[in-house]
């Protein structure tokens, strides 16, 4: 009679370049409902960080409030974490990132946390091109507060309480594209083959990377008439194509059909291949991404996969021309130059 994760792991678990197994990237055991899509996303983050061989202490996980925002406890237990206020993850991430650009920032939010209370925060993080992975665990409802419709819920979609949603949904990917996001993707918690390479690519991207992940709430929004349940998402999913993430060191072996394959080299040298299903999509063209999303929506399909990517963008630090050294590594003289320096500044403004 226990609910504890055993200490043992498979004796043949693979190790990554740091000599770590996946266990070294796990967190505490989840307290979410059994079958929640969010848990699958946590597993995908664990897998991606393991495969990228990121040192766990060089990651900061930041979240708001919601079931989704609870999940950073359940992965990367040896990383830094900040569970902030509802909708305020982007400001905390911005502060942290400005203070120390050397960490990998993983922001976890929900559709409520992002598209309702945190909308103002979200939009500004996008337009500033803050270097982070921004994961929206999108279940179309406020899971933590018992399943009220959220701003991403489709019109007419029916959750557990049984009344259809009356309002137009916000599409976070098209919005982010409008606001100048430099990496935009959509995925599904139930498709790790797609999600894991996307997370790896998003972490490797130097700029703001949004992944809007359909993540069914088994308890409040997994009904037959909900457009965010397992069955509906599976039946209506369309993909931009198959994404492969190829780290810097690995040679590219695959043969591909040029018309349908797009290859993007990220600024750290890693390469993304998209084996496209739709030859009209151009990963470097915002408009083509927005059009592709709309084309699918008209067919009642949910377009997933990598949608847009600008690998040569400037992130917030580059835009502002900040110092390279993290603030904690600066000495007191630099951080606190004293009254003379202040006087000099004031003088220059007179």
């Amino acid at each position: 009679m226990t609910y504890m994760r055993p200490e043992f792991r498979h004796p043949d678990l693979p190790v990554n370049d740091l000599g770590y197994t996946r266990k070294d990237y796990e967190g505490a055991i989840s307290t979410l409902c059994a079958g929640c899509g969010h848990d699958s996303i946590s597993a995908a983050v664990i897998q991606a960080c393991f495969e990228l061989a990121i040192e766990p202490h060089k990651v900061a996980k930041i979240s708001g409030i919601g079931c989704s925002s609870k999940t950073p406890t359940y992965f990367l237990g040896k990383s830094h974490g900040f569970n902030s206020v509802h909708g305020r993850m982007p400001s905390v991430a911005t502060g942290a990132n400005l203070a120390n650009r050397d960490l990998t920032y993983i922001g976890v939010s929900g559709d409520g946390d992002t598209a309702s209370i945190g909308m103002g925060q979200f939009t500004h993080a996008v337009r500033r091109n803050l270097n982070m992975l921004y994961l929206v665990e999108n279940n179309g409802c406020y899971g933590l507060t018992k399943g009220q419709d959220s701003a991403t819920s489709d019109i007419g979609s029916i959750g557990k309480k049984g009344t259809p949603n009356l309002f137009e949904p916000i599409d976070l990917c098209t919005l982010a594209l409008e606001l100048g996001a430099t990496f935009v993707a959509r995925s599904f918690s139930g498709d790790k083959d797609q999600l894991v390479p996307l997370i790896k690519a998003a972490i490797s991207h130097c700029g703001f990377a949004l992944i809007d992940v359909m993540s069914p709430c088994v308890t409040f929004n997994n009904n037959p008439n909900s457009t965010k349940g397992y069955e509906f998402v599976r039946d209506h999913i369309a993909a931009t194509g198959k994404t492969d993430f190829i780290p810097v060191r690995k040679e590219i072996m695959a043969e591909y059909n040029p018309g349908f394959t797009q290859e993007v080299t990220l600024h750290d040298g890693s390469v993304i291949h998209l084996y496209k299903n739709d030859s009209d999509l151009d990963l470097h063209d915002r408009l083509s991404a927005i059009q592709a999303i709309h084309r699918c929506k008209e067919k009642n399909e949910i377009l997933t996969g990598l949608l847009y990517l600008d690998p040569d963008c400037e992130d917030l630090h580059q835009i502002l021309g900040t110092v390279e050294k993290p603030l904690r590594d600066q000495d007191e003289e630099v951080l606190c130059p004293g009254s003379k320096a202040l006087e000099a500044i004031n003088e220059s403004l007179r």
Partner: protein
Amino acid sequence: MKPTDIIKDKEYFHRVVDCQFACPAHTPVPEYIRLIAQQRYTEAYMINWESNVFPGVLGRTCDRPCEPACRRGRVEEEPVAICRLKRVAADHKDEISAHLPVIPTTKNGRKIALVGAGPASLTVARDLAPLGYELHVYDEQKKGGGFMRSQIPSFRLPESVLDEEVGYILDMGLVTHFNNYVDSLQDLLSQQYDAVFVGSGAPRGRDLANLPGRQEADDSIHIGIDWLASVAFEHIETIGKRVVVLGGGNTAMDCCRTARRLGGEDVKVIVRSPYEEMKASPWEKEDATHEGIPIIENHVPLEFVHEGGKLVGMRFEKVQAVYDDHGKRSLVPTGEEPVLYPCDAVLVAIGQENAFPWIENDIGIEFDDWGMPVLNPQTYQSSLSNVFFGGDAAFGPKNIITAVAQGHQAAISIDLFCNGQKVEERLPPSTNLVSQKMGIHEWSYDNGITTDDRKIVPLVELTSALQNRSLEVELGFDVQTAFVEAQRCLNCDVQTVFTDDKCIECDACVDICPMDCINFIENAEEEELRQNIRVKAVNVEQALYVSGELKTGKVMVKDEDVCLHCGLCAERCPTAAWDMQQFYYQVTKAASACKK
């Protein structure tokens, strides 16, 4: 792969219970281990008694094929101390007489002769007595127990333990003919027995008859098993100070340790093969070493050295093991000078043979080229339809638990035979599958996985052990230690049962499983599936559990190899597509076979 049929294929889940599957008698190990953890020792004992008849004996002496098979040994360093937990049940049980079968006072009119009173015959008797058979047991020794009494030294197996467990069977109204060597099967058959069971063991010890000096120094040279029997029956009480024991099996280990207790001060085991390849179990070798007995490897006996018939030593040739391309070993002389080990006595413990001088050639029992009876391996029936064999007499020297397992099968055959039924038409094992779910996070078994290392059984202090041949060396676990050890068991009989049409493919079970057992992938042939899953399933001894096709067209594939039976998959499944269900597998015994 085709979906696994867990209901029709009764052996599927049986294979998952590694210890039970490996046990020749298929004792329901995890069930009795749980009962020990719950301090229900009597029930734990009776589960054992039902399957293996001699729990107290086996809890001290079993060859324990279950332990190398135990899943825990694949998950961490050491398996569960299954054997010594069995002893805990025997040590701490209450009076069991009320739980023993009732023996009918009116007999069924059939008379069976059992030759030998070893574990094989006693098992047959235990299974047939409750059915009303009149059972006549013959043994040349003065008491029942066979080799358990004459060979296994009492510092490993106290006489009281043996007397108790042999007694349960003799008390079932058996007619004993002890001190009675059967010298003719023909005679026995003429005494109106409906069937005869031959459980006469493998009573002849190998000798080195042709080695120079063997005849001359005969007074100081003993055949190991004969010598052990003489010690057991107190015909021999001392031995010389310097003793050489020849052989590398368990008999050699019992000989050397016994010699240490009868006055042997300088006792050595000298063996032909390399140490690693000795037949003795690792723990028997450890016990000998602990008692200050060196084991000298790669020495082939050359001659018994004597002075006018008085043994003074033994000469050996040094060899080394050389292996050909097929791994076949030959012992090649190193060319060094032969070495002399001075000694006052030699114990020859180099193997045992079967011998049936009392079975006439012309009565219809066929023997093969090696002098072994030709038997049906399922029914143990010989070419003479009313004569059955079991134990060491059937397929050569093995161990107690094998003798017991064969005894159960022979008893079924005898019962079918006496009822005029076909002995080949046997009932399948009985199995049962019961959900363990009690509520949220609540199972009726303790699903927590402990990380304690295997517990070591404490021993009596060495000097007193060596002074008293009858003082049991192992003290057994106390109940606290037994509890910790019992909790190491992974409950492999509590099965993960999957129902395909409930699964919504949410992956929750995949994500939570600490051992990466569960996969949702495209179906393929077994070999391919073994390669394609999360962690390659290289242990082909362990099955893959495959579901029918799911909604997405994928199938669930679970590698049973290192599953902890922790139940987290079932805990995390939103639709109860996984459930933890206890699988109970019981070998059908004669008692139930007769109800057919």
